[in-house]
């Protein structure tokens, strides 16, 4: 640990493939730089703790999403983003790009976060609300609520909401 040790917390609220990256990248990197890190998973971020992940990107509501294709950057007209199968297609393209560019998978980053002793808290209210079972989540996570997070946040130097 460095002499001037800082700590970080992140509230993880989004569970799509693209939105899963920032919290896991920052958590693993901060941990690698010696910061104690806590991640609080709530609402659509909670399923990122499920043992089996099958993350997708959502083209709808993501109007700036463009992918490199045939030497250009191509986006989808908003109307087309609602067509069935579009999200699955975009997700396959994204996962291919991720592999091709040497970017870690979310599964890999999550494993590294666990290894680096990043503390992960699942939101109890979200577990109840969306009927998730702790048994379906990865090992070693804590369960907590808003007060648990506030206690962590009040002792952290960096608090992010993603």
């Amino acid at each position, binding site marked *: 640990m*460095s002499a001037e040790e800082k700590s970080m917390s992140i509230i993880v609220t989004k569970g799509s493939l693209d939105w899963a990256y920032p919290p896991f*990248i920052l958590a693993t*990197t901060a941990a*690698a*730089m010696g910061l104690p890190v806590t991640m609080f998973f709530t609402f659509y971020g909670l399923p990122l703790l499920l043992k089996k992940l099958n993350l997708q990107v959502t083209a709808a509501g993501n109007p700036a999403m463009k992918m490199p294709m045939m030497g250009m950057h191509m986006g989808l007209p908003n109307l087309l983003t609602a067509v069935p199968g579009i999200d699955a297609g975009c997700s396959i393209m994204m996962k291919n790009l991720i592999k091709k*560019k040497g*970017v*870690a998978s979310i599964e890999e980053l999550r494993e590294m976060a666990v290894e680096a002793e990043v503390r992960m808290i699942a939101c109890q209210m979200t577990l109840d609300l969306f009927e998730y079972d702790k048994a379906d989540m990865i090992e070693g996570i804590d369960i907590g609520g808003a007060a648990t997070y506030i206690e962590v946040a009040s002792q952290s130097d960096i608090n992010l909401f993603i």
Partner: protein
Amino acid sequence: MADHTLDAKGLNCPLPILKARKALKEVPDDGTLEILATDPGAVADFQAFCRQTGNELVEHSEDDGIYRFLIKKTPK
């Protein structure tokens, strides 16, 4: 000659840093870790990593798209 070499070529952010952190654990105090990478972002990132962790970035260079970093592990 470095005590350990980490080949992080082809890996993208933040993998070179994460793997370097792991590799540093195997390096003895005052020993050195050499890292080879192709991610141009690694240049700024390894400087920041060393400033934050207190390890010494002894040198870094670039040759034909391959970045080479030499980190000396500072005893805790």
